[in-house]
């Protein structure tokens, strides 16, 4: 099988970014060694491989590190050509990259604030989250998956946190915006996404996520 001894992934099971890489590797049938990181006591391995950001995930191939989950996804697709995850046509690729960046910048920023803030600040952040979700809902209007294909691809993988992690962000953050009546396309996409075996077999248990998010909120929430 492809990959093997010289392919390692440093990450954590709860991290939505780490799971993207896990999904991509498993969809392509690539073998790798998973090294679980302790983000409270970062290993010297992590600090050596990612001195700039000190974050997971880090893919290590032949001893060389590749960092940033979206960049790792592109690397994996370029290195192991079977079962492509990015679209073939340049325009479709540009489209996927644009919305991936939107999901990780606009939507993630707003969701993080809605999660961590309280009072009026939280209200504003919730509005921004809803706006971002509405734009995504509009894009999904005519598609089964974010890539428009029968099989999930790059943009579905990047959006994956919306299908699973988002509900716990809402729960622990104390807000609720994702309703099937308001976002029918996102709801339908979530249901299909969570039926893909590679995805369901590689999701952290709910209690672990509640615990981690609870700890983060306690640490970052303004008193």
């Amino acid at each position: 099988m492809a990959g093997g001894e010289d392919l390692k992934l440093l990450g954590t099971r709860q991290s939505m970014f780490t799971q993207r890489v896990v999904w991509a590797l498993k969809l392509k049938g690539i073998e790798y060694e998973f090294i679980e990181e302790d983000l409270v006591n970062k290993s010297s391995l992590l600090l050596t491989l990612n001195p700039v950001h000190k974050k997971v995930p880090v893919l290590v191939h032949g001893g060389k590190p590749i960092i940033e989950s979206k960049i790792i996804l592109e690397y994996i697709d370029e290195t192991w050509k079977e079962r492509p995850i990015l679209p073939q046509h340049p325009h479709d690729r540009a489209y996927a990259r644009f919305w991936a960046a939107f999901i990780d910048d606009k939507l993630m920023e707003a969701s993080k604030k809605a999660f961590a803030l309280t009072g009026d600040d939280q209200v504003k952040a919730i509005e921004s989250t809803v706006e971002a979700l509405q734009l995504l809902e509009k894009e999904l209007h005519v598609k089964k998956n974010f890539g428009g294909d029968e099989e999930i691809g790059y943009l579905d993988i990047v959006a994956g946190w919306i299908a699973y992690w988002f509900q716990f962000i809402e729960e622990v953050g104390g807000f609720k915006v994702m309703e099937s009546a308001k976002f029918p396309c996102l709801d339908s996409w979530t249901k299909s996404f969570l039926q893909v075996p590679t995805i369901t077999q590689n999701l952290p248990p709910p209690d672990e996520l509640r615990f981690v998010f609870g700890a983060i909120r306690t640490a970052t929430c303004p008193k």
Partner: protein
Amino acid sequence: MERSDEKVKVVGTWSSQFVMRARIALNIKSVSYEFHQERLWEGKSELLLRSNPAQKKVPVLIHGGKPICESFNIVEYVDEVWSSAPSILPSDPKERATARFLAAYLDEKWFPSMRTVGYPQGEDARKAAIAQLEKGLVLLEEAFVNYSKGKSFFGGDQIGYLDIAFGSYLGWLRVAEKMSEIKLLSEAKTPRLLQWADSFSSHAAVKDVMPDTEKLADFGVRAKILKATATPKL
């Protein structure tokens, strides 16, 4: 399927480093295009709002009527559609990953510090920003030595992705140096980058789109005043 002979338009402004990237990429590939200059002080054009409704930002590349947004997306798109030499991205996947990483780092972590140096808000903020910029420049000097392999550009003999990513910031870098009276690129600390900055700026694909430092400095001041006096959205 995209055809490389279909009409190309770029929606942008002369001052934006992001727009510059799109134009340099097209120039490298010798693709002719129509430039639609946004009139910044008059509000966003209908064309811009129509082509990029999600973000309402420049640059937008319109190819055969279809819009592509985000400067690095545009550069990758241009490289993929006009795939004959010269290539913009490196061919090795690991080098591509590193180039993409450094490019993202420049936009997300490095450039915000440049703004603080050029238009500072307090001495402590200025000092922290300079330290952040210098840290980034050390990374880039190292990357240059590794990638150029003794040649003039990050891309080797030709301008490549990292040249475009970093080179598009030279205008603002010179403004920051001028406003703060410090040398960010220097013979002592970044000798190779200093040399590269000249080669890049005078390259045929770059020289007509590199903004004049004085003009850019004035623009920066105007933009700052406009932002400070803008009526907040209700």
